[in-house]
């Protein structure tokens, strides 16, 4: 610790998240003066090279933003381009899209719950370590993940970057017979999903509260997944939920550089907001089928039907497990009602215009906007991933969490760093969604104030190690 009593906690390379991020919290005496989730994922310039591509290309191109949620990118892109071209895909083609998305929810959530997140609640570094004590639970998680992947493989061709999605629908639609083995597997997955809800419900959840507005898509009569209307549930009571048309997304959700921070952050009508599992459950939980709502209640989640909202991000693992159960049920329902459509895709003739698309990626709301010229070439593209939207709320939460912990007495840096890492993993951040992450150089105000940095992690060849030159007066960070 430095003379001033100021100390800086830093975790050079966040583990068990998708992509690369780092974390920095500045503590002065018993006050938290700064909390930063740094993204140092290298920029990949998707929005730049989407320009001058054909209107048929963004679903395949943007799927490469993220290996864990490629279907989210493909679906948001399809919707935005179809919107620009004045086409709405409905009927069984829309149902197949939802089925594919259910596969991604099951796969991504099962991965996050069992391999990335559960170790936090069991005092372990990895799922491999957990498997020594809870082998059946990890095997069950891998089976669930496999069930999700099998939907992606049958309908999409492969689990990572499916090839069968196109603007207007699919390249090829399955027969009923091809989907039957999926249904059999999903019947078994239903048991596994119920057991997974029970398992995670038994974890210990630290007290925490997300004080941001909750933001998710809403769709009449169903739990919104692959489409819906942007809906805000404001924090603090007094204000009712409100919605706005998707075409007005850019007027409400604004990415900006805030003067006191080095991070580019998206704000919703000027306030911090959170997307993802907590937001979805708060906005649409009352629309879950009764059996799923019952499982949620039995797992200790509040009942959204009576207006209760779960704001503890540590419980997001329970909501994800409930969403896996729902996605399994929903996939079974869609397969049951499936009738192969006459054509695998609708014609989408290009025209000049701008279109918007948003879907619920497993980790939160993902928005795409494209402008096309008369020939159907992309003239402008904008991708707003959930992690960029969530960052402000997550930083706020980190500040609150560390402040609360310090109020209870002295804590080691390692303990605080561990707590913060857990808090970040609660949100399943998809850091590879680095469509536009900033890399800034920050000069310290006064060198005399320079605190000693201590690390919460034993270093190895972590991606952060080479990233942080321990310069006298300059520190380098990259930010969302």
């Amino acid at each position, binding site marked *: 610790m430095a003379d001033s009593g100021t100390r800086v906690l830093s975790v050079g390379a966040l583990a068990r998240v998708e992509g690369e991020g780092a974390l920095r919290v500045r503590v002065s005496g018993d006050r938290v003066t700064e909390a930063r989730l740094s993204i140092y*994922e290298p920029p990949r310039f998707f929005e730049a090279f989407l320009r001058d591509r054909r209107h048929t290309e963004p679903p395949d191109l943007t799927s490469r933003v993220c290996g864990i949620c490629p279907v989210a990118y493909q679906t948001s892109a399809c919707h935005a381009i179809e919107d620009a071209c004045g086409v709405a895909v409905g009927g069984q083609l829309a149902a197949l899209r939802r089925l594919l998305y259910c596969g991604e929810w099951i796969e991504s959530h099962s991965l996050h719950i069992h391999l990335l997140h559960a170790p936090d609640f069991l005092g372990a570094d990895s799922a491999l370590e957990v498997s020594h004590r809870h082998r059946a639970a990890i095997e069950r998680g891998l089976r669930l993940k496999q069930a999700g992947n099998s939907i992606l493989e049958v309908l999409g061709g492969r689990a990572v970057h499916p090839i*069968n999605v196109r603007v207007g629908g699919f390249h090829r639609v399955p027969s009923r017979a091809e989907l039957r083995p999926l249904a059999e597997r999903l019947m078994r997955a239903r048991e596994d999903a119920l057991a997974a809800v029970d398992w995670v419900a038994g974890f210990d959840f630290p007290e925490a509260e997300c004080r941001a507005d909750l933001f998710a898509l809403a769709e009449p009569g169903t739990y919104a997944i692959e489409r819906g209307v942007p809906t805000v549930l404001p924090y603090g009571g007094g204000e009712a939920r409100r919605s706005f048309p998707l075409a007005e997304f850019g007027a409400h959700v604004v990415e900006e550089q805030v003067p006191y921070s080095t991070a580019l952050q998206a704000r919703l009508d000027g306030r911090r907001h959170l997307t993802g599992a907590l937001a979805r459950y708060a906005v649409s939980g009352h629309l879950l089928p009764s059996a799923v709502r019952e499982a949620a209640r039995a797992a200790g989640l509040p009942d959204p039907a009576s207006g209760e909202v779960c704001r503890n991000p540590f419980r997001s693992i329970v909501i994800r497990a409930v969403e896996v159960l729902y996605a399994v049920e929903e996939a079974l329902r869609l397969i049951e009602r499936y009738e192969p459509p006459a054509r695998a895709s609708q014609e989408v003739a290009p025209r000049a215009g701008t279109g918007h698309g948003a879907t619920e990626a497993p980790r939160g709301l993902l928005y795409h906007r494209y402008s096309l010229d008369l020939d159907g070439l992309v003239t402008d593209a904008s991708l707003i991933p959930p992690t960029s939207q969530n960052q402000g709320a997550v930083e706020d939460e980190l500040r609150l969490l560390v402040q609360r912990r310090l109020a209870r007495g002295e804590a080691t840096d390692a303990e605080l760093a561990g707590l913060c890492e857990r808090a970040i993993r609660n949100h399943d951040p998809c850091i590879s969604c680095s469509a536009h992450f900033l*890399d800034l150089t920050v000069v310290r105000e006064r060198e005399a104030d320079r605190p000693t940095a201590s690390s919460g992690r034993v270093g190895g060849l*972590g991606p952060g190690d080479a990233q942080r030159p321990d310069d006298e007066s300059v520190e380098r960070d990259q930010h969302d």
Partner: protein
Amino acid sequence: MTGSDRPRLGVFKFASCDGCQLTLLDCEEELLPLAAELEVAHFAEASSDIRPGPYQLSLVEGSVSTPEHLERVRRIRAESRHLVTIGACATAGGIQALRNSADGDAFRATVYAEPEYIESLATSTPISAHVPVDFELRGCPIDRGQLLEVITSFLAGRRPDIPDHSVCFACKRRGTTCLPVARGIPCLGPVTHAGCGALCPAYGRGCYGCFGPSASTNMPAMIPLLRSDGMSDEDIVRFLHTYNVEDFAALEPPGVLDEDD
């Protein structure tokens, strides 16, 4: 279970989408048995327990695209007995190599409000452009079966049995009707490296080349074929310039296509 007798595995990431690392976690049935055979010493996406080198086998995902990457790739090489690149980014620069032939400043200005803050190399390059690589596994993303073959062959001390013929061979084996011949659908199968199991043609779409060029390709013969299937030269450039842009561009016959850059 720290067992120093087991071979030590490192998994590392550069500029990428994480999809190829994820393919390792997608080996659901093999994951726990595999973890009993080797020590997962460094795999930040899967474990907080990050151990220092050396590593017997390092799997490297992603392309070199920032100044920091240049130093880091050398450190990883120095600590690795075998270094295998996984996926199109690590093997060919990936989709982000689309910036290599573009005006870097304009690219930055398109994405960032304050582009002067962006620290990024003007190019996105494969790992082999910087350090020696023992084996390159292709694909965007890689194939799960091929990944298991690579890991098990290195554990057994032999070369991986990864065929380097074209997608066409796999299509014939699968019994898929040839799309360009039967339906006039443009397809990069004749010049693309096998590995996906000829997935796209089986779903009625032409191969879009995500495994990069195969060992022996005749690109001058490919381009008239694409034209005869109705593609304009601009569309052909876009077709080849996607996930393995640098590798395909190297094979393009000079002057046949009018480059827009």
